[in-house]
C-alpha cells in the first residue's frame, strides 16, 4: 500500500505545487495575496470542460484553452482588483480579492449550476505496474505536465529577460521602474503566468478526479496559501517543495491514520516547521 500511496501523494502534491506557484509569484512581486486564485483554478477547469463538451475540442486543446482563458482572467483580476488599489493600502487589494473570489464562485454557480459535472473524456484508466508502483496513464500525464511546467517556469524566471524583469520588480517596484522596466506590464504578465499555472492545475484536477464543481477552488486556494507560507513567502522552490510535501503528508495520514486527522496532521507539521524556521523552508529574512 505504501508504494501506491506515494504515487497518490506525488500526483496530488504536484497539482498543489502548480497552484502554489501562482500564489507565490504574485506574492513575490507585489507582496500581496490573490485570494481569487482558487477561483481561477476552478474557472480554468470549466473553460476546458466547455471546450470539450460544447466545442468538441480534444483534451489537449482544452488544456491549452483552460490555460489561456485562466491567464486572461488573471489579467482581468489584476486590472479590476489590484491595480486601482495598489497604492491605497496593503489590506485593500486583499479584501477586494476575497470579494472577487466570492463573486466568481457565485457566478460559476449561477452559470454552470451548483452541482459537479463530469469530464466526458476519459484517458484510459488502465494501470501500469512499475515495480511496486501502480500508476495510471492519467497520473503519468499529470505528473509530466506538472513537472514539465515547473521546469519551464524555472527556466523562464531565471534565464529570460522577462523573468529577470519580474525578479527585479519583486526586489523593488520603485527601483525597477527607475531602471526602465515597464512595471505595470510586468505585473500584468505575472498575473497571467500565475493564473495560467492555476488554470492548468484546475484542468488536471478535474481530469484526474473526474469532477468539476464551482466549489473546487475554495479548499485548493486555502491549501495553496498554506503551502507558500510553509515554503517561504514568494519563494518558487519553496512552493514546489511545499506542494509536494503537503500532498505526501495528506495522503499518508489518510493511509495510516484516519482521514479525520489529515488536516490536523498537515497543519500541525506546518506549525512545527514554522516554529523551527519562521520564514518557511526556503524563505529568507527580509530587511
Amino acid at each position, binding site marked *: *500500500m505504501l508504494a*501506491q*500511496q506515494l504515487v*497518490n*501523494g506525488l*500526483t*496530488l502534491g504536484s497539482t498543489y505545487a502548480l497552484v502554489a506557484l501562482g500564489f507565490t509569484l504574485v506574492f513575490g512581486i507585489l507582496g500581496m495575496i490573490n485570494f481569487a486564485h482558487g477561483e481561477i483554478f476552478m474557472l480554468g477547469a470549466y473553460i476546458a470542460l466547455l471546450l470539450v463538451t460544447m466545442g468538441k475540442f480534444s483534451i489537449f486543446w482544452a488544456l491549452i484553452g483552460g490555460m489561456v482563458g485562466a491567464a486572461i482572467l488573471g489579467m482581468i483580476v489584476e486590472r479590476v482588483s489590484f491595480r486601482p488599489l495598489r497604492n491605497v493600502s496593503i489590506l485593500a487589494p486583499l479584501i477586494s480579492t476575497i470579494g472577487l473570489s466570492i463573486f466568481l464562485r457565485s457566478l460559476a*454557480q449561477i452559470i454552470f*449550476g*451548483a*452541482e*459537479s459535472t*463530469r469530464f466526458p473524456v476519459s484517458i484510459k*484508466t488502465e*494501470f501500469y505496474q512499475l515495480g511496486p508502483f*501502480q500508476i*495510471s496513464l492519467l497520473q503519468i500525464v499529470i505528473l509530466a505536465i506538472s513537472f514539465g511546467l515547473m521546469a519551464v517556469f524555472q527556466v523562464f524566471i531565471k534565464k529570460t529577460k522577462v523573468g529577470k524583469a519580474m525578479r527585479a520588480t519583486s526586489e523593488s517596484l520603485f527601483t525597477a521602474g527607475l531602471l526602465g522596466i515597464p512595471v505595470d506590464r510586468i505585473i500584468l504578465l505575472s498575473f497571467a503566468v500565475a493564473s495560467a499555472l492555476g488554470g492548468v492545475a484546475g484542468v488536471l*484536477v478535474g481530469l*484526474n*478526479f*473526474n*469532477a468539476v*464543481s464551482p*466549489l*473546487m477552488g*475554495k*479548499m*485548493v486556494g486555502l491549501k495553496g496559501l498554506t503551502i507558500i507560507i510553509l515554503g517561504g513567502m514568494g519563494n518558487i522552490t519553496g512552493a514546489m517543495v511545499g506542494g509536494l510535501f503537503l500532498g505526501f503528508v*495528506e*495522503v*499518508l495520514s*489518510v*493511509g495510516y491514520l*484516519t*482521514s*479525520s486527522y*489529515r*488536516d490536523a496532521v498537515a497543519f500541525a507539521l506546518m506549525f512545527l516547521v514554522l516554529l523551527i524556521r519562521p520564514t518557511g523552508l526556503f524563505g529568507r529574512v527580509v530587511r
Partner: protein
Amino acid sequence: MKRGIILGICCLLALCLSSPNVRVSSAADEILIGNVSCLTGTAAQYGISTYEGLEVAMEEINAAGGILGKKIQILKGDDSADPRQAVNVVQKFITRDKVLVIIGAELTGTTRVTAPISNGAQTVQFTASATGAGLTDNLPYAFRNALPEAYAIPFVVEAAKKKFKVGSVVIITSYNLDYSVDLTKIYEKALAAAGIKVQDKISYAEGDIDFSAQVSKLKALKPEVVVMTGYYQESAQLMIEMRKQGINCPILGSNGFNDPKILELAGKAMEGSVWASGFFPDNPDPKVRKFVAKVQEKYKKQPNQFHAQAYDALMIIAEAIKRAGVTESTPENRTKIRDALAKITDFPGVSGTHTFKPGKGDAEKSVFILTLKGGKYALLD
C-alpha cells in the same frame, strides 16, 4: 458626480439582489407555503428536484381550482445547505411572510435546526427528503414523508445479506457531515443485528476532491462489500476511484443514491450498487406513470425520489388544509392543520401509501430495494 453615479449603481444593484425575496401578491387570495431548500451548494440537486416536485403538485392543485377556492403559492428560500442560513429563511417565513405551512428542509442538518423553530411558532414543517434519525421526535408540528434511513437501512442490509452472502463490510464516512455520521451509526446497528462484521471504517471530509488515498487504503483491506454514507457528489467520485484502482465489490448506499445525478457522475462505476428508495420510477401504477410523464414533459428529466416525495408532501398538506377548512395563517388555524395532518391514513401517493400513526411525525410507507443493472435503475431480485 462620478461618486454619485457609482453610489447610484450600487444602490440599484443592492435592490436587484434583494428583490427576489420580496412578496408581490397579497396573502388574502392565496395560500402561502414556504419551501426552505438548498438550491445552491453541494447538495443543490436535492433542493432543485424537491422544488420541481412541488411545482408539479402546485400546478395540478391550482388547475383544479386550488384549495377551498384559493390558489397555492410556493415561496422559495435558499439555505445553501447551511444550517445557519436555513434558520434565517425559516424565521423570515414565519415572521415576515406569515406562511401557512413550511416544506423542507432537504437535509438532515438543516432540518434538525429549523424544525424546532417552526414547532415553537406552531407552524407545520414537513420535510420530503431529510432522512436522519429522530428529526420529528418530540416536535408535534414536524412531519416527514421521506424514508428515514433508520427505517430503510435494515431492509437494505437484509437484501444484501441474502444476495451477496456477505460476512463483513467496510464503511466509508464523511466525518464532518452529520448526515453521514448518523447514517454510519444506523448501518452499524443494522449490520450488527444481521450478524455482519464491520471490518474497518474509512473517512473523508466534505469538499474533498482527491479520494485516491482512501481508496488505496480500502484496496489493501480487500473488502467484500463497501458501505457508502455520503452525499452523491463524493459517493460518485469514490465509486469512480474504486473502479479505477480495481475494486469491483458491491456497494451499499443510502438515500442519496436515488438522485439520477449520481448515475450521471459515476456512470458504469455505480453498477451493482444496492440501496433503498421510497419511489420506483418504472412502477406500473397509473398514478406513478402520469406523474413521471408530467415531470418528463415539464423538466425533460426522469423524476427521482425527491420529486416524488415533494409532490406527495404538497398533496398531503393540501388534503390536511382541506380537512381543517382554514386558509388564514393564525396560530389556531395552523394548529387545526397540524391536527388534520396527524390524522391522515392510507393516503395514496406516487411514492407509496402514507399513514401517520398517533404521536409520530414520520409517515409509514413501503420500501423499494433498488440496484443499478445495465445502466438502469431496477428492483433487486
